[in-house]
C-alpha cells in the first residue's frame, strides 16, 4: 500500500548513521545465517521472489470504504512466513535498495531507516508474533488469527518508528503524539489489507503448489478462503483499535495545543504573534480550550467509525452472497479439488 519511506533530509546525521549501522549489523548477521542454512537452490528463489514482490505490487486491491482507492501487497510478512525471517529481511532490503536507487524513495542515507522500519521490524517482529500465535502446526482458523495479529503488530510497529526518528532528528517540528497516532491509525488499516492478501495468496499457493508453502504449516492444506465470520471479526477488531487510536488522538490534542499556546504567550515577539493571529483566523477550530469534554468526543467518533465500518462490512458481505460467486469459479478456486469447468 502506500509506503511511508523516510527521506534523508528529515534525518540528522546522528540518527541516519545510527540506523544505517543498526540495519547493516542485522543484514550481515542475517546474511551469515542464510548462507549457512540456505539450500543453494534457494539463492535464485530469493532473488526471483524480490522481483515478485515488485511485480505483485502492481496488482491493485480495491478498498471498500473509500471508492477509487486501492491497496497492494507489502510483502514482508509473506516472505517471512515462506522463507523465514533471515532470508526475508535480505529480500526486503534488496527491494528497498532498488526503490531507493531507481525511484529515489527516501535517498541513500535514509536507507538505514527504511530497511529498519519496512524490513527488519516487519520481518522479525511479524514472524515472531506469527510463530507465537500460530504454534507449531496451526489449522486455517488459527493461522489466520496469527497472520492478522502479526500484520497488525509488525506493520504498525515499523511505521510507529518513523515519528520517533523524525523527533530524534528534531529537524521538522511536527507535534509528536499526533504524528505517532496518525501513523499508527493509518497503518492499522494497511495491516488489515496486508493480512487479507497474505492469507489469500498463501492459501492459493497451498492449493496449487503445496510443497512450496510447506514452511507455512498444516493450515495450508485447508481451503485458504476466509469465512465471512473471519472477515467481519477482523474488521471489527481493526475498527475497535482504530476507535481507540482516534480517541487517544482527540484526548492528546488539548495538551499539545496547551503547550503551543503557552509557548506563544511567553513569546512577546510581535511578528510571531502576528503569524499566530493569522493562523488562528484560518484554523477551523481556533478556540479549542472553549470546548468542554473534548476527549469524550473521541469516544463518540470512535464508536461512530466502528458502526460505520461494521455496517459497510455487512453490506459488502450481503452483496457478495447475493451475487453467489460460486457461479464464477476462478482457476483452482474450487472447494472439491476438481478442475473448474471454464464458462
Amino acid at each position, binding site marked *: 500500500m502506500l509506503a511511508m519511506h523516510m527521506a534523508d533530509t528529515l534525518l540528522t546525521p546522528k540518527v541516519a548513521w545510527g540506523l544505517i549501522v543498526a540495519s547493516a549489523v542485522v543484514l550481515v548477521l542475517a*546474511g551469515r545465517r542464510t548462507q549457512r542454512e540456505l539450500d543453494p537452490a534457494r539463492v535464485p*528463489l530469493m532473488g526471483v521472489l524480490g522481483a515478485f514482490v515488485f511485480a505483485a505490487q502492481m496488482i491493485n486491491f480495491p478498498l471498500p470504504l473509500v471508492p477509487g482507492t486501492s491497496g497492494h501487497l507489502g510483502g514482508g510478512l509473506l516472505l517471512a512466513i515462506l522463507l523465514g525471517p533471515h532470508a526475508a529481511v535480505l529480500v526486503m532490503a*534488496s527491494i528497498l535498495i532498488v526503490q531507493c*536507487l531507481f525511484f529515489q524513495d527516501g535517498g541513500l*542515507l535514509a536507507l538505514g531507516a527504511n530497511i529498519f522500519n519496512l524490513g527488519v521490524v516487519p520481518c522479525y517482529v511479524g514472524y515472531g508474533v506469527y510463530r507465537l500465535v500460530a504454534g507449531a502446526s496451526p489449522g486455517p482458523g488459527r493461522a489466520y488469527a496469527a497472520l492478522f495479529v502479526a500484520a497488525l503488530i509488525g506493520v504498525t510497529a515499523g511505521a510507529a518508528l518513523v515519528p520517533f526518528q523524525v523527533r530524534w532528528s528534531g529537524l521538522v517540528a511536527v507535534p509528536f503524539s499526533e504524528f505517532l497516532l496518525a501513523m499508527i491509525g493509518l497503518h492499522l488499516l494497511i495491516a488489515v489489507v496486508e493480512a487479507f492478501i497474505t492469507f*489469500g495468496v498463501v492459501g492459493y499457493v497451498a492449493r496449487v503448489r503445496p510443497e512450496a508453502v510447506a514452511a507455512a504449516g498444516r493450515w495450508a492444506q485447508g481451503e485458504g478462503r476466509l469465512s465471512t465470520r473471519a472477515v467481519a471479526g477482523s474488521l471489527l477488531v481493526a475498527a475497535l483499535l482504530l476507535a481507540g487510536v482516534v480517541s487517544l488522538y482527540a484526548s492528546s490534542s488539548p495538551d499539545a495545543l496547551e503547550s503551543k499556546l503557552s509557548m506563544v504567550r511567553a513569546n512577546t515577539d510581535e511578528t510571531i504573534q502576528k503569524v499566530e493571529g493569522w493562523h488562528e483566523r484560518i484554523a477551523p477550530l481556533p478556540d479549542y480550550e472553549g470546548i468542554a469534554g473534548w476527549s469524550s468526543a473521541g469516544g463518540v467518533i470512535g464508536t461512530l467509525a466502528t458502526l460505520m465500518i461494521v455496517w459497510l462490512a455487512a453490506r459488502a458481505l450481503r452483496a*457478495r452472497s447475493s451475487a453467489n460467486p460460486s457461479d464464477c469459479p476462478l482457476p483452482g478456486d474450487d472447494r472439491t479439488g476438481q478442475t473448474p469447468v471454464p464458462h
Partner: protein
Amino acid sequence: MHHHYLDRFAYQDSPVHRLDPRAKTLAVLAYSAVLISLPRYAIPSPGYVIFPFVLLVVGGIPLWFVLKHTLMVSPFVLLLVVLSPVFDRTPVRVGESVVIAGGWLTAGTVLARFVLGMAALIGLTSTTRFPELLKGLELLGLPRMLVTQLRFLYRYLFLLIDQSMHLRQAWGARDAGRGPIGWRWRAATGLVGVLFTRSLEQAERTYLAMLARGYDGTIRLLRPLHWQVRDTVFLLAVVAYLVFLRWGGMVGR
C-alpha cells in the same frame, strides 16, 4: 511492454559514465552526508547546485527526466514540509530586521536538500549500469549475500513486471472493475498467487540452468572494474568542493 526506463540512460557514453562506479558512489554519498549535516535552519547556498548539475549535464541526462522524477516526490516529505511552518514558530532573524517563524526555514531547507539529494542520486543511477554499480558496492563492502540477491532481483524484475502487466490486462479485459468487492478481492489474490507460482517455477528453471553452467556458489562477472587516475582526480575534486562549501564560510542561508 514499456518498462525499460529504470536505468535507461546508463548505457550512454560520457565522461561521467566512464568513471568508476565506486568513485561516483562515494562522491554522491559524501554529497548527501554534507547536505544532511547542514544546521537546522540553514538553506543550502547556491554552490550546492553545482555538483548534481555537472553530473547530470556532463552525463547527458535530460533535465526533464530529472524534473519528472523530482516531481514525483514522496507525498510524505511534502506533507511534513507543508506542516512545518504551522508548528515550528521559533523566531529566526533573517537579514537585518526581518524575523520569521523557523518553520518556514525548515520547510525551505528540507525541500531544497530533498531536491538536491535526489538530483545527485539520479546523477549516479542514470550514469551507471546497475550490474557495475553492484560490483562497485560489493567492492565497497556491501555483504556478498545482499549483492547476489540484488543481482537476481534486477535480472528477473522486468520479466515478472511484464507478467504482472499481462495478468492485469487480462483481468481488466474480463472483469472491467465491476462485481462485488469480495469477489474482486479473491480474483486479485488469485492473480498474486499465479504470479507467485510462476516466480517459483522461474527460480527452479534458473537454478537448473545455473547448475548446468557449473554454478558452485560464487558468481563471476566479466568486465572487472579498474580504478584509474581520473577516478582519483574526480573524487579528490568532489571532496575539495564539499569541504569548501561546508567549511569555507558558505554555509549560510
